[in-house]
């Protein structure tokens, strides 16, 4: 059992132990799950220190047979792409537990147990190197989130939970069909082997096969991202979920979709991915602008943040399907950024909700007078979210826009509108909630941040600044991996050699510009 497997096992064990605890011991349950999640986070830092940059392929690998027939392996490992997403999951789970401390009043034991089950599934998704194992974890994640929304959510929670489950399920079954189809071709579920078989041309997909398989995988991931027009489950799920649910959903679960695109869609089906990039990017840009416009008119803070996610995730998809080093780096970086800053927004909106028991913007006003520290942390988060330089989102958005411009300038031109719009809706909401006259209602319900809340928000703000100023902590590992993925999808690497030389010519400068972009970002 290596460190990665311990990381997967500890939350699962914690989940089972929590279920066996007596129902009445609520405080102990909370402390126990917090302890488990902090332990997992501490252990996960070992992945960062143990990660050797410059090595190709996965690290912390463990590969044993799980089921002999069909040949399914317990194959886990990480590369630069999964490394930081796993850290993101382990980093946010203790925060999710802390923000639920006083918020959850019924069925306390089950709630915290489900958070650990969720963490187990998330780490597993990002660590799996066997298609079947990946699918297993992908579905396992669905169950705790379904219950989190459905049991502890707001008024329309049941509708939202079922919608969430069914949307994901429809995408997943098609992906399952595609996975089994790949298996019938390759005779294995092992992802590395499948990639090698595809790359070497020993398994040649014809054009229709590749396109259909690509679309089956793509649909599952696009629903999860969510890409316009498949996003309609997201506002419901976010608004109805308890704060911890929204946090984990926005920060990590949406990344399962974009992660899947980068990890599976691009390397396995490079030709189809490139062919379809056009309309996908158009949808991504529509998502960016549409999400921002809809966010602008929302009277509900959580819904506003939810639609802003649609907009932000559009950037990520645009970066992925720009097929440039910078775009892809930016996309991965933006996945992490969005996890931190939107996560923080949900946390802060949760704080406001716990005080005022309302999410409607009109029920607030003048909060800055009553709770200045709350206002300041909210302001920093808002600025991070709209992409102020020195804070994290700026780096990601910049890289994505630059990368997209290398591919096609028009994409950048349209997508940049989204950046401007994000400033509009976020600042406008900030103004209405925190400034203006302070009503008595608000005044009596607006205590300053307490210690527990500080403990939730400070780590997030530290990360916003850190990721905005010290990109070299995170980006090198990401770049190495994305470079490998990009190389695999470059026309030069494909079996058809005709377009070989121009592709290299395009690929090389993009790497250099990517480094230049780094410098700028710092």
């Amino acid at each position, binding site marked *: 059992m290596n460190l990665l497997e311990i990381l997967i096992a500890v939350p699962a064990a914690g989940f089972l132990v929590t279920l066996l605890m007596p129902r009445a011991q609520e405080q102990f349950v909370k402390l126990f799950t917090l302890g488990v999640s902090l332990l997992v986070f501490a252990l996960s830092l070992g992945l960062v220190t143990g990660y050797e940059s410059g090595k190709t392929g996965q690290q912390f690998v463990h590969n044993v047979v799980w*089921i*002999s*027939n*069909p040949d399914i392996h317990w194959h886990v490992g990480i590369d630069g792409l999964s490394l930081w997403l796993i850290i993101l999951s382990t980093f946010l789970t203790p925060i999710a537990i802390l923000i639920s401390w006083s918020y959850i009043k019924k*069925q306390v034991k089950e709630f915290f147990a489900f958070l650990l089950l969720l963490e187990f599934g998330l780490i597993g998704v990002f660590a799996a190197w066997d298609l079947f194992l990946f*699918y*297993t*974890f992908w*579905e*396992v994640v*669905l*169950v705790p989130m*379904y*219950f989190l929304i*459905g*049991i502890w959510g707001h008024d329309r*929670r*049941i509708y939202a*939970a*079922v919608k969430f*489950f*069914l949307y994901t*399920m*429809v995408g*997943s*079954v*098609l992906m*399952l*069909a595609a996975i*089994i*189809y790949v*298996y*019938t071709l390759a005779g294995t579920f092992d992802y590395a082997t499948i990639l090698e078989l595809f790359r070497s041309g020993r398994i040649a997909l014809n054009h229709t096969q590749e396109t259909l398989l690509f679309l089956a995988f793509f649909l599952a991931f696009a629903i999860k991202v969510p890409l316009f027009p498949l996003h309609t489950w997201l506002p419901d799920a976010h608004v109805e979920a308890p704060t911890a649910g929204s946090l984990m959903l926005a920060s990590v679960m949406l990344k399962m979709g974009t992660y899947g695109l980068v990890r599976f869609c691009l390397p396995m089906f490079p030709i189809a991915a490139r062919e379809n990039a056009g309309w996908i990017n158009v949808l991504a840009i529509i998502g960016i602008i549409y999400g921002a416009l809809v966010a602008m008119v929302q009277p509900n803070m959580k819904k506003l943040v939810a639609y802003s996610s649609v907009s932000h995730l559009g950037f990520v998809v645009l970066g992925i399907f720009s097929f440039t080093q910078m775009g892809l780096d930016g996309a991965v970086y933006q996945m992490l950024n969005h996890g931190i800053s939107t996560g923080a927004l949900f946390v802060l909106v949760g704080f406001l909700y716990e005080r005022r028991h309302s999410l409607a913007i009109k029920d607030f006003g003048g909060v800055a007078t009553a709770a200045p520290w709350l206002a300041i942390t909210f302001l920093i988060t808002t600025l991070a979210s709209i992409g102020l330089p020195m804070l994290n989102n700026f780096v990601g958005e910049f890289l994505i826009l630059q990368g997209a411009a290398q591919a096609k300038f028009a994409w950048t031109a349209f997508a940049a509108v989204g950046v401007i719009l994000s400033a509009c809706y976020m600042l406008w909401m900030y103004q209405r909630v925190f400034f203006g006259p302070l009503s008595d209602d608000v005044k009596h319900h607006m205590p300053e941040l307490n210690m527990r809340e500080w403990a939730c928000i400070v780590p997030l703000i530290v990360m916003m600044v850190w990721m905005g100023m010290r990109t070299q902590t995170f980006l090198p590992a990401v770049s190495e991996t994305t470079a490998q993925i990009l190389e695999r999808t470059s026309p030069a690497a494909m079996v058809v050699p005709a377009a070989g030389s121009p592709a290299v010519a395009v690929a090389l400068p993009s790497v250099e510009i990517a480094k230049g972009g780094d410098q700028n970002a710092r």
Partner: protein
Amino acid sequence: MPANFAPSADDMLRFGPETILTIAGTLLMVLDPLFAKKLPRMFGHLSIAALVAAIFAAVAASSVPGLAFSNLLIVDGFGTYFRILVLCIGILAVLSSYMYLEREQAETGEYHALILFSIMGQCVMVTANDLIMIFIGLEISSIATYILAGYLRNDKRNNEAALKYFLLGSFATGFFLYGIAIIYGLTGTTQLGAIRSSLNTPETSLMVAGVAAALMFVGLCFKVSGAPFQVWAPDVYQGAPAPVSAFMATGPKAAAFAIFLRIFLTAFDRIAVSWAPVVWACALASMTIGNFAALTQNNLKRMLAYSSIAHAGYILVALASNSEIGTAAAMFYLGAYALMNLGAFAVIVYISGKGETNLRLEDLAGLGRKQPFTAAMMTVFLLSLIGVPLTGGFFGKFYIFRAALDAHLTWLAVLGLLNSAVAAYYYLRLLVVMYMHEPGEVTNALEAPGPALQAALILPAVGTFFLGILPGTVLSFAQAASSFVK
């Protein structure tokens, strides 16, 4: 014809489970007047003991594989698998009957004897090597089940269920018998292997064989409640006593699928090109009708009845793939399905109350709060019915759709998988009601389940997880068993 009809010792061993069940069933009938008042629970204990003994006998029989009684029976891996499966189904059905019979004050030896006889018939079916034996087994199993469906003879719905099941069932059996007659006329034999070789000779008319296959298909499709012969299932499952519905949806169905596979893959292998498309269409129709009809059901038993039609459709997909992988997948699925379905029905037995008055969806409201253990078990069964990974139901579906893709039935696999997404909706409704609604009158009044019912919940849940996490052992057994003696 062999001159010596005296069975050998090995033959007796191969027929062990059936012998034990018959003796135990008869004994129960004899004991009924003696103990019905004093020790009503004893009948259940006795039948469980008999079923466990029969499992050992089935294992012992598998040590002497081969043909028995002048080639009428065949003890092979396939037969052994299904024997053990139906015996386990019997144990779980009896376990969930304790509470039901006590509540209805209807503990008799007759009930348990009928269950044992029905299982005995199923054991004959799955090990039969001859159409006549198959028919005899089918009749023993069916007649016992007809009576069981109307067991509470003063209950109107029980009577309706029994009558419907009996009339339609006899009609379907008639088709099956007619098919046997035609095959006998065509080939001069009723033994599966001999029919197969006869069909392989050029002078046999494949058209006539096709007609016989079609007639037998009608009979069998009825027994497994596959579309378009599924109409009886919702009414009968709804009307029959809950533990009997659980039994009907699993035991006779598993045995019927076993003979379905054996007859069509052994005897009618030659004309697979003509029956495979029919099975394809029936599979799709069963899945679609079952799932879409279940969406709107508000009665728990009816919903599970439609869900069982849909699951029959999934298994027909395996049959349509007409391969050893498909057979193994069907075997695995029937095992997983039996566990999750019996478990779900055990929960229904638990909540339904005297006279089965509480069968509405809302009657489950707040079960998660009031009876967390039972609700957790139900969750396991529902997740398995949906097909969420790490449960047996998921691997069952996975193997079936893999077999379908292997056989290039790509569209059937895709449509089947989409169907399972539709199915998720109505299973989720149960989860929603259990966990997300406030407890109602019914759940407030519930008392914790007794030991027998607890066993009827825990055993299938453990089995479901076992099949979901370590499916390899069962699947490799099924695969080894799936090559028929041809």
